[in-house]
């Protein structure tokens, strides 16, 4: 397990906020290997969101280089970035970000639509992904007919359906109560156990303890990077 799936090298990101230049990232070096379970933490303003957008190929660095699964994405144009997001990254958001009018199944099919996979194959893969997160029975429900935990499971199924290199979760339990949070974290644990690389961005230490490695950012730099002991209660499907 030495193959590197994410490699950041001297990443900086500056942007203008009004007349003021904000230096959100000031030189980040980071390597994440296949099947790691990493939590990225840090207080607000530490550059946590910026690095999340960077890792998710929604943003490109001002300077530095970023390789994702062998592709150098730091110099890519919009269309190529869209393709990388589609093939290599599975997003899970705090607010679920499901399309409200589409059924759970249709939401999960969405990345496959943009991958150009058609008809029956797409449906079969979306159904498999929903079964994996334990929502096989509710795939025809609309998001507003599902509980918060169920919605997040749909979002996880959508993130998984293209078999991405990394599962990138941004505060995935931020809108959930503690019982449901545990449930969702067990899903992540199970996926990691099946070989999925998981990157979790969170400010909650309790959530971060589920990961096996915690990277703390402060003022746009990596402040600490250490392995955490596996939790006793952890992995269960």
């Amino acid at each position, binding site marked *: 397990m030495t193959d590197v799936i994410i490699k950041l090298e001297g990443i900086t990101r500056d942007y203008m906020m009004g007349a003021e230049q904000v230096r959100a990232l000031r030189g980040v070096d980071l390597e994440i290997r296949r099947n790691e379970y990493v939590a990225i933490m840090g207080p607000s303003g530490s550059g946590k969101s910026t690095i999340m957008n960077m890792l998710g190929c*929604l943003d490109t660095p001002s300077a530095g280089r970023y390789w994702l699964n062998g592709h150098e994405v730091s110099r890519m144009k919009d269309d190529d970035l869209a393709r990388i997001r589609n093939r290599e990254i599975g997003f899970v958001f705090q607010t679920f*970000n499901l399309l409200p009018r589409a059924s759970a199944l249709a939401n999960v099919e969405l990345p496959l639509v943009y991958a150009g996979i058609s008809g029956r194959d797409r449906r079969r893969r979306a159904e498999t992904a929903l079964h994996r997160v334990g929502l096989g029975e509710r795939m025809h429900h609309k998001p507003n007919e599902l509980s918060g935990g169920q919605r997040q499971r749909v979002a996880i199924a959508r993130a998984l359906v293209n078999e991405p290199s990394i599962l990138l979760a941004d505060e995935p339990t931020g809108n959930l109560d503690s019982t449901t949070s545990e449930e969702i974290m067990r899903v992540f644990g199970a996926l990691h156990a099946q070989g999925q690389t998981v990157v979790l961005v969170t400010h909650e230490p309790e959530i971060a303890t589920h990961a096996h490695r915690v990277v703390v950012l402060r003022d746009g730099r990596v402040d600490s990077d250490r392995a955490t002991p596996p939790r006793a209660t952890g992995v269960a499907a």
Partner: protein
Amino acid sequence: MPFFEAVILALSSIRAQKLKSFFSLVGVLIGVTFLIAVVSIVQGMNVYMTDKFADAMGGINTFQLQSRPGMTFGNVTEAMWKEWQRRPRITIEDAAYVEARVTTPARFSRESGTSAGVGYHGKMATGIDVFTVDAEFFRIKNWNIADGRAFSPQEVTAGASVVVLGGELADRLFDGAEPVGKTVTIGGLPHRVIGVVEKQGTLFGISLDKFAVTPITSPARLLTNRPHVIDDLQVQAIDPATMPAAVEEVTTLMRVRRGLKPNETANFNIATAQDALDQWGKISRILFLALPGLVGISLVVGGIVIMNIMLMSVVERTREIGIRKALGARGRDIMAQFVVESATLSFTGAAIGIATGLLLAFAVRALTPLPAAVAPWSIGLAVGLGILVGVVAGVYPARQASRLDPIAALGHE
């Protein structure tokens, strides 16, 4: 994303906001309704004019020698009208002169008519067209006799008091009883019914079957014009190809007979069915000139409305766009989604417009004498214009959508 799926997606967005979608496509709907209704009515008129109207005038190989135009569509000035009033009338002698000299094979019938009451056993039909004519009149008009017979040249020579009735007049006076052999009064003068003409139907809602035809020598002749004066001489070229030659001959003969110098304008008129058709052609050309303006304005307005709705829709769905982009939609996928949605919206408007336009055209046909016929090209054009308006109106909003920054879009509430 495949085109078919984009359309399905577009339809589901349109369905999700039915009322807003409906208002947004009203402009296109009205434009297309106009287009279909006007084209259908004009097209119907075209068919009508060439088939029925020309037929009613005696077919395209028939013309009338008359003193002044009997039917005008265009502008008639006071001076023209006065000049017409001063013209000498056509006489029996004029007719005889022309008939004797025309070499083109043709049928002739003098015609002198009026409007009179026709009565039978206390029943009276008023405002009936009474034609006093020659025997050839029936062949010129191509009328079939439904019952009895037409009168013969001998009866014309003899001045027989006989009459052939139009189908509707016969129905009105006899109510199903046998008319042939009965005696009716025309303006008080008794005439024996010898036949009934097959029904012709209506022209612009006016019955073509309320008439009575008698020999030009019958007593009814006294009701029409002064002795010797007739309304016109009907001439039918037997071979339609010789019609222009016949017109030429009659014109020349009349000019000679009236002693007109070469530079003098004719003081008589030759009326052909073609003249009336040409008049109609002018009117329909004007309608077709005005049509693109009307339709164009509606479609431009419709396009602007759709563009606005789409711009609003892009703002409302910013988050959706962000989600799609995060999941791998490229700018052009988003662009295509919105253009297809706009085109689908506009096409829906055009489709409803086609339906309402046809409905309107058929309502006009059912409720007014104006005919209507569907022109397939107008439906094709409406569909094409509908899609075009949608695509054009959709491009700008779609471009805005495709350029949204996914991070900002995802953060949008």
